[in-house]
């Protein structure tokens, strides 16, 4: 019943270019199934039959959270729109609990009333996963910002889910530690959101992913049950590791209310080198050389292309510190001994300069200069927002293929796109492909998708390396996961959230129901 009803309600306009799919040898049955139902797989599906918020509901919330039940449309506006300003919902209620107990009561109530809930942290997500699609109640972690404990021997930090990443970094730095992750959105994103999306970031190369550094979670389930797995132990092999289910689940299996995370010591010496390469092949060889000569002190290896640099110069008035090159690399080292690290770094730089792998570069050892060099990589996203509408793709590929995708897209799109740029965590095999046009252009979108996903699937890559699926990419899951896996995900969702009230329309494809 469900599938066909929805199918009938979607107006079938012009032909969908899924003949492109046929060109590539991927498992297409599941793909066909997902795509065939939707003219635009990234757009919102029809509203599911959840209850609507009544005056009685508001009275309950106002009693539970006095002064923290927001219904003013002006105040709700910013929580209804995502950071990229590409997705907007119509929620009429924003709730700001302070404690896990309050979150539990909210969910228990919403589950009984069949009210949909959209958990929201810093609202910096890039796939439309953090804002409501329709009138889901927004459950914000913004007032859950307490640090609970910090042990400076083990380096284990326990805090509420609404702590802003940058604030945690500042707290830890005073105590000679750092967070194991760092991303451009650090000034706004919440640690709960980071964990829900299994955020990657600039330090993954050195400290690994949240799946390794998160030691415990406190989660409130859809029916209000509080799951306290907030262990602060480095090693604990007692039963199934439930927290791994919630990490990266994008708020669809439970609401994370507290996190315990293992933090590394603050490095005594940090150096940043900004290098220019004349080809991607040389960039890769520089990476190999870097791994060999800098090894254990390497903490980041990022790249950006010449198009990114010109956007930074044009819109943000940043200066290119070296001569113009087709590719730029940002290398960061972090270690416990400044002289030791500088010696290693200088030997490496001498090697790549004399062997001409690198055509030019500069080094920074001092805080303000380091910040200036990092901003050349961190602010590319910001520079792109000034170019109009950005189509963002966060792809994992075998490292040698990363730039082939950018060049291929340029050829494929021709004049239709204003900019096609590539940058990202090349050390992790993660490309951020961005395409801009002056305004939203359905013809351009049709040319990009599913071409870019087919291309990725062909090379066994991931269609979403670190951004998650959210609303925009939920139906493309089959490009990177087999249908049996997706079906099992559906079973787990049905078991933990039978009414489907937690962040509906996100992460799992529409045909899962």
């Amino acid at each position: 019943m469900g599938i066909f009803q929805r199918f009938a309600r979607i107006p079938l306009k012009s032909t969908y270019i899924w003949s492109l799919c046929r060109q590539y040898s991927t498992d297409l049955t599941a793909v066909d199934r997902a795509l065939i139902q939707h003219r635009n797989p990234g757009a919102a599906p029809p509203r599911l039959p959840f209850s609507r918020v009544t005056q009685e509901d508001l009275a309950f919330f106002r009693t539970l959270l006095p002064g923290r039940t927001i219904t003013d449309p002006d105040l709700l506006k910013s929580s209804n729109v995502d950071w990229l300003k590409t997705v907007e919902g119509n929620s009429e209620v924003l709730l700001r609990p302070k404690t896990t107990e309050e979150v539990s009561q909210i969910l228990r109530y919403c589950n009984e009333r069949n009210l949909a809930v959209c958990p929201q942290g810093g609202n910096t997500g890039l796939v439309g996963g953090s804002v409501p699609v329709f009138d889901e109640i927004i459950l914000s972690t913004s007032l859950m910002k307490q640090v609970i404990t910090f042990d400076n021997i083990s380096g284990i930090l326990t805090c509420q889910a609404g702590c802003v990443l940058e604030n945690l970094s500042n707290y830890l730095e005073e105590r000679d530690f750092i967070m194991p992750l760092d991303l451009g959105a650090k000034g706004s994103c919440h640690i709960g959101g980071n964990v829900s999306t299994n955020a990657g970031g600039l330090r993954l190369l050195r400290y690994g992913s949240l799946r390794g550094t998160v030691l415990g979670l406190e989660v409130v389930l859809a029916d209000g049950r509080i799951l306290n797995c907030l262990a602060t132990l480095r090693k604990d092999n007692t039963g199934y590791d439930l927290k791994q289910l919630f990490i990266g689940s994008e708020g669809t299996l439970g609401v994370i209310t507290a996190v315990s995370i293992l933090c590394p010591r603050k490095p005594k010496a940090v150096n940043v080198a900004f290098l220019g390469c004349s080809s991607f092949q040389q960039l890769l060889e520089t990476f190999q050389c870097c791994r060999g000569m800098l090894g254990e002190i390497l903490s980041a290896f990022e790249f950006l292309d010449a198009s990114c640099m010109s956007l930074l110069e044009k819109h943000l008035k940043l200066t290119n510190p070296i001569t113009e090159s087709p590719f730029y690399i940002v290398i960061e080292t972090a270690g416990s001994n400044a002289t030791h690290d500088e010696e290693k770094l200088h030997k490496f730089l001498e090697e790549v300069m004399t062997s001409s792998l690198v055509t030019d570069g500069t080094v920074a050892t001092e805080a303000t200069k380091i910040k200036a060099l990092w901003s050349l990589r961190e602010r590319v996203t910001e520079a792109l927002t000034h170019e109009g509408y950005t189509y963002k793709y966060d792809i994992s590929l075998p490292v040698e293929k990363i730039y082939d995708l950018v060049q291929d897209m340029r050829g494929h799109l021709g004049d239709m796109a204003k900019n096609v740029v590539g940058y990202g965590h090349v050390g992790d095999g993660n490309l951020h492909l961005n395409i801009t046009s002056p305004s939203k252009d359905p013809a351009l979108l049709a040319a990009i998708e599913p071409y870019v996903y087919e291309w990725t699937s062909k090379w066994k890559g991931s269609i979403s390396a670190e951004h998650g699926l959210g609303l925009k990419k939920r139906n493309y899951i089959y490009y990177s996961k087999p249908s049996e896996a997706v079906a099992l995900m559906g079973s787990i969702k049905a078991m933990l959230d039978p009414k489907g009230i937690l962040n509906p329309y996100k992460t799992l494809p529409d045909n899962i129901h």
Partner: protein
Amino acid sequence: CFAPFLCLRPPQIRVKPDRTGVVTDGVKHSMNPFCEIAVEEAVKLKEKKLVKEVVAVSCGPQQVQETIRTALAMGADRGIHVEVSGKDYETLGPLQVSKIFAALAKKEQADLIILGKQAIDDDCNQTGQMTAALLDWPQGTFASEVTLEADKLKVVREIDGGLETIKIKLPAVVTADLRLNTPRYATLPNIMKAKKKKIVNVKPADLGVDVSSRLEVLKVDEPPQRQSGVKVETVHDLVEKLKEAGRI
């Protein structure tokens, strides 16, 4: 052309337990931002072929050599490291530094001394002026623009009322202000070249300068801790609290 500059300590400041100064152990030294601008200006003059040679000078302990190397990587031709360490370095102030610069300027027969207007660790804003006085040279301080016109220097100075333009004869002392230029990044090929440039070691005694201080620091204190604010519910309460605090 002389580009003497100062090394300074970075932002995270902690007062020593004996309150005689701030903690400098294990803390990274880097070039004073205004002095960096001075070095850039000197290099620019050389690139315009208006000066023959740029010598970078700094006074301090061993670590200072690294910052001299940065100046060399930016384009200075050679460096002079005036070795001052330990207790002497802790009490080294503008007067002693000016004496050192004046002695060096005479020895090297410099025509122009460019330095930062002030060091961001002590904010004294005295070295440039004292150096000029000791040498009896004219000075163009807080320079936001420097132009060579025949044998004179036209200097646009940033002053409280706006901008003042003066013409001074060479040899002269110029101190750099923020808007004089934007220092270049030292690029790798230049960093490599700089390794081969010479840095000469000199002691203050060799220049006939006594670095003992005539000043005694009595105490150093942290600024008073900021009190947390108080939230009130109504305007009436606000007025009451302000009255209580004697503010209205």
